[in-house]
């Protein structure tokens, strides 16, 4: 069924048991992003040291796609340098805009390739990007 391409098992697993959820006490910066058209919200705590993501925790409410995507992203980006992280992010954004034409580069995106199917559902792309945009905002502020 078409739906299964959207709701990959990886996504539903992360939705049910999100990683890095729960805000850490320490952070360099906190950002809050939301999606006014559907009400999804993410708060993200980020710590970086020497341009490397040392800690990334979050809290939020939202649909399976937005929550799972933030969870997968956290796994992926902790320990990455800023440039590397931006590269992964750009890759993910490209995948989202691929209208179902790309399966994603697993060597870069790892579990996040599970979101490839989202690109066929235009209304859900902003769900998948919510946490990523919050990270982009936070990390660029830290790097300034």
């Amino acid at each position: 069924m078409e739906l299964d391409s959207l709701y990959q098992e990886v996504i539903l697993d992360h939705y049910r048991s999100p990683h890095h959820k729960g805000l850490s006490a320490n952070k360099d910066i906190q950002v809050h992003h939301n999606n006014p058209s559907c009400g999804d919200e993410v708060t993200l705590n980020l710590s970086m040291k020497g341009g490397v993501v040392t800690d990334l925790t979050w809290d939020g409410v939202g649909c399976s796609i937005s929550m799972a995507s933030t969870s997968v992203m956290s796994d992926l980006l902790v320990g990455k340098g800023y440039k590397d992280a931006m590269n992964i992010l750009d890759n993910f954004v490209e995948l989202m805009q691929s209208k179902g034409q790309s399966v994603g580069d697993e060597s870069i995106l790892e579990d996040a390739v599970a979101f490839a199917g989202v690109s066929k559902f235009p209304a859900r792309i902003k769900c998948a990007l919510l946490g990523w945009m919050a990270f982009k905002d936070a990390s660029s502020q830290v790097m300034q």
Partner: protein
Amino acid sequence: MSIDLSSCKKDFPIFERKVRGGNSLIYLDSGATSQKPNSVIEAESNFYRTVNAAVHRGAHLLAEEASEAYESAREKVAAFIGARSNEVIFSKSATESLNIIAYSFGNPDSRINIKAGDQIVVTEMEHHANLIPWQQLAKRTGAELRWLSVTADGRIDLTNLDQVITKKTKIVAITHQSNVLGSILPVETIVKASRAVGALVVLDACQSAPHFALDVKKLDIDFLAFSGHKTLGPTGIGVLWGKFDLLEKLEPSLFGGSMVDSVTMESATWAATPRKFEAGVPNMAQAVGLSAAIDYLNHIGMHNIAQHEQDLTSYLLKGIVGISGVKVIGPVDMKDRGGVVSFTVEGVHPHDVGQVLDQYGIAVRTGHHCAWPLMRKLNLVGTTRASLYLYNSKSDVDSLLESIEKVKSYFKVSK
């Protein structure tokens, strides 16, 4: 079903298309916007094909015929809500209608206006369109915004009515029917309380005018707004009704051509009501389309439409309360409620509920429904909302109920 409107569906060409998964369209999102019958689509097209010209401005035949078509539309709308035609203003949407009133009351040149210390009253279940314009008016003028609360069962809390509506209250702006909960507000009681303190009443009829007969005189209100696109009409057209004497006292809020009496480089004076509120070349084809929509509604009969929706809603509520893990947000009885049914499915986010329903061709709305304060109050991140109209049938409701079960199994909801 006691009323059979099943023959209507064929008048709406969109139902000929297939949607996701090759399914037929089951449209349960009329609370957001209604579908359009052929007669409306053709009325708008025919305007362009046969009489298109700028109204009230030309000496030529097309301009005469266009003006006639536009002014007839005004009369049609007036009759639809029990008003005089010179009290009907065409806007682009209910949102614009409500903003017009708020701006006009905020203009100190208006002979009735809002000043610092005045109070404006709304309810906690307002759509943003009947909340933010008043927040902004309060902010601009130094007035105070107050509100009637919502009870746990989705009704307006009237217990503190006379603490909320006081002698300082100048405007009471309420929705006729909640676009989230489906509850119909006790307009009579609220009007009475408003009249007692001399406050004016603004009614947001977006979710009522399309669904049951209403009469502005019987309602004893002062202003009313609704949208064409939720009333089988075109997009880009809304209605603002106000009592003539009140409209005469208000300054307009949109300035330009066709709304003036006289203009110099320094200043301008205004044409009579309703013209002064309609600056610019109006949305003529859309007004004509709305007129055709009202013809269609009148032809079926607003009482039949209301009855049909009551029957369907009652059927839907009966079915949905029986599904475990599903909770209706709003009244579950039929007393003072319309065909808008919001619900949550335990463990599944509304957006995901909507996605699965979409896979079966069922179009619903999910999220906060532009009523964010209400969501916060009810401690919800959002709901899934099914909203019914004349083209819906019992079988649409059956499909919805079956598909909710599929949502549960897809997301492995154990209950």
